[in-house]
């Protein structure tokens, strides 16, 4: 069958992997740089073009457009961070596919076991899961979903998605 959906491979984002307690991270980075910390699991908060995603216990991802990377790197100072926190720039380790259209959720469901219904995966949800057997980060975008996988699986994922949509 064919789906009413399309996909595109997005340019990379600025992405930083943050580990540590909220208080330790705020103390190091400064509250003015970050959106509010999402208290709920697998949830994101956005402010000023920056998205802070709560993806695991004391584990967060900070994402923004790639042209913000240098600014954010300057504010986060990964290499000088104290022992209580870990900050790693991972922008070029992930590649993101944007899947949009009426059937976007059906296309995702081919390779992803997440319950994507609004009640289980609301607008501000973000979660690691799997996509065609690989670890993937899933979240909403306008009209569909963004799914990020490790960069080295990018071409393989593109093949899967082409097959799914043909």
């Amino acid at each position, binding site marked *: 069958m064919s789906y009413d959906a399309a996909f595109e491979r997005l340019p990379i984002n600025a992405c930083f992997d943050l580990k540590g307690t909220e208080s330790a991270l705020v103390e190091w980075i400064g509250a003015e740089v970050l959106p509010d910390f999402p208290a709920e*699991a*697998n949830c994101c908060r956005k402010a000023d073009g920056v998205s802070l995603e709560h*993806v*695991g*216990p004391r*584990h967060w991802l900070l994402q923004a457009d790639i042209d913000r990377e240098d600014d954010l790197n300057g504010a986060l100072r990964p290499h000088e961070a104290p022992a209580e926190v870990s900050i790693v720039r991972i922008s070029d380790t992930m590649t993101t596919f944007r899947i949009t259209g009426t059937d976007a959720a059906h296309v995702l469901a081919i390779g992803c*076991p*997440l319950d994507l219904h609004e009640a289980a995966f609301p607008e501000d949800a973000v*979660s*690691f*899961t*799997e996509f065609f057997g*690989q*670890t*993937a980060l899933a979240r909403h975008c306008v009209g569909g979903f963004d799914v990020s996988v490790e960069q080295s699986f990018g071409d393989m994922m593109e093949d899967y998605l082409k097959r799914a949509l043909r």
Partner: protein
Amino acid sequence: MMLIPCPFCGHRNESEFTYGGPVKPDRPDPNATSDEDWVEYLTTVPNPFGPVQERWWHARGCGTWLTIWRDTRTHDIVEGPSDAE
């Protein structure tokens, strides 16, 4: 298919998890235990016909390790995780 309760994420498909094996008894002091008990500890894997306590890692998820009781006859998870690490 099993839905495994993750303390961070809630119920998730078993395919997101990696099996960590059954929970073994505490390691006895090899100098204070009999050879028989020591060999038993080293070589016998818990494999009951019924509930078994086991570890799972939410590897393609939030990264949490958790402990559940799973009934080997039905795959029912008869007791969810009390730990979150």
